[in-house]
């Protein structure tokens, strides 16, 4: 892993930008270094693909996962577990909050304002330029403003997540990097990392990459696919 985080990290972004996949992968990579890692699923708006899907894998690795009680796991209800604020107050090592999509999903962050007060926060906006509404710098800026206003916090950095899932090729990664570079220049926000699927890494010319890389082992998969095993 080419970068290291600690403290409280909040992952935000538009619907389907890849927040959960990134939150889960960052959690696993940091756990590997021996750090204490916690992940809270704050996605109250998406009923299907949330980090709760990866609960078993994460728990086995010793990552503390804060989710609503099991009987409400498939409820179409916005349940924010009270464990989340406790986990923020007593955080050491790395605490990752995986927020829901858009401003609607980020609203929950504002509800945690008391617990987050006076804590140093790193808030990353995940950008996939192959998604509708974040395919332009203006679109990304607009979503940034909407999320900041709903969550009542400032975004502090960017994560480039250019991908078309299985259809991603090296050019998508290079073009995505160019996009996030321009966005960083325009917004003044630093880029934490860009993501590359583990399966694509060998096809990428590392010399062409100017940011740290987060390899993605895909966990959010449909039932006919197997989740990708994290390298031992």
């Amino acid at each position, binding site marked *: 892993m080419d970068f290291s985080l600690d403290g409280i990290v909040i992952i935000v972004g538009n*619907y*389907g930008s890849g927040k959960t996949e990134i939150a889960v992968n960052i959690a696993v990579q940091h756990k590997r270094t021996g750090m204490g890692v916690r992940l809270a699923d704050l996605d109250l708006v*998406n*009923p*299907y*693909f949330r980090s709760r899907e990866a609960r078993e894998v994460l728990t086995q690795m010793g990552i503390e996962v804060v989710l609503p009680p099991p009987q409400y796991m*498939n*409820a*179409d209800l916005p349940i924010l577990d009270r464990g989340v604020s406790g986990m923020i107050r007593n955080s050491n090592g790395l605490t990752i909050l995986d927020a829901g999509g858009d401003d609607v999903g980020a609203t929950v962050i504002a509800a945690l304002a008391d617990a987050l007060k006076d804590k140093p926060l790193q808030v990353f906006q995940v950008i*996939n330029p*192959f*998604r*509708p*509404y974040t*395919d332009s710098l203006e679109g990304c800026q607009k979503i940034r403003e909407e999320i900041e206003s709903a969550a009542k916090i400032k975004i502090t950095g960017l994560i480039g997540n250019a*991908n*078309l*899932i*299985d*259809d991603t090729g090296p050019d998508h990664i290079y073009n995505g990097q160019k996009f996030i570079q321009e966005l960083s220049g325009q917004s003044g926000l630093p880029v934490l990392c860009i993501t590359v699927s583990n399966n694509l890494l060998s096809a990428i010319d590392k010399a062409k990459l100017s940011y740290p890389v987060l390899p993605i082992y895909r966990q959010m998969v*449909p*039932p*006919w*696919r197997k989740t990708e095993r994290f390298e031992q």
Partner: protein
Amino acid sequence: MGKVLMKGNEAIGEAAIRAGCLNYFAYPITPQSEVAEYLTKRMPEVGGVFLQGESEVAVAYMIFGAAGAGERVFTTSSSPGISLMSEGISYIAGAQCPAVFVNIMRGGPGLGGILPSQADYNQATKGIGHGDCRMLVMAPASVQEAVEMVMNAFPLAEKYRNPVMILGDGLIGQMMEPVEFPDHLKTEPSNKDDWASNGMDHRKRSERNLVRSLFLDPTALNDNNLQLKAKYDQMKKEEVRSESYNSDTDYKVLIVSYGTMSRVCRTAIDALKEEGIDVAMVRPQTVFPFPEQAVRDAAQKESCKQVISIEMSMGQMVEDVERSVRGGKPVHWFGKCGGDVPTPEEVVDVVKSLIN
């Protein structure tokens, strides 16, 4: 435009716009609410309208109104919402108006659950509303196919002046896949002046167009039903679509499966092949009309000993499979309900149990 990464629900909304549909009325329900969410942003950008009704009952009649006036119109909902719309759908079919309905199915009956299901098969293909009404029903297995089916649904609805349904399970709405949009639909010359209640100004003939499903004269009502039947018979001749998988082998088992369930079956078929067991699949792309001939032909192959319908319901499509096979080979069923999608491993085990 190159490929984009979209959630099925978003792609369905975009596909409707590209099919020239600028009228969307709906009421939110999981797992299809993202269509409304997407079109809230998107419709104003293209000069279209999204109006949320007070309920699904209201939405069905808003659709009827727009369709009766000759406008391209569509709605999306999920199982309980479609039940509420079914009265209106029958009215629309009776009045011979074109409209597109999307059902992103969730588990039932009743409120059921929010996870994927295919348990509205019978409702969609056989009992969408009272009276002798039916719909053309297409069932996509990928986000790309959902886009193509939605775009085709509008001209088909207009060709038949009848509701057309896209029947997807919750996964179709919720999963993300790369997708490419065909060019905007070239709108066919419309025949709507012959039937739509769209004003007299530009009409060539002097009679009014009446949009109605009320026929108090028994002969007139029978005539209307005969017209409907003729259309449904024509759909059976002209619109049946299906796809085969691994069918050029000496397969012992034939799977019939549709929607995302068929993708689980595909993974299972690939796994069985690695073990030296050939299994074929017919995937209905239209479920009404049902691909009877394709299923019958595939079942009749000499090597084929068993036929199985695999569906996320308690055995609905299996009746159409039995009807198609006509007793030629034993027909079985395997399925699950409640959102727990059968896994490829479970399908492999079920197929093995049939041949051992």
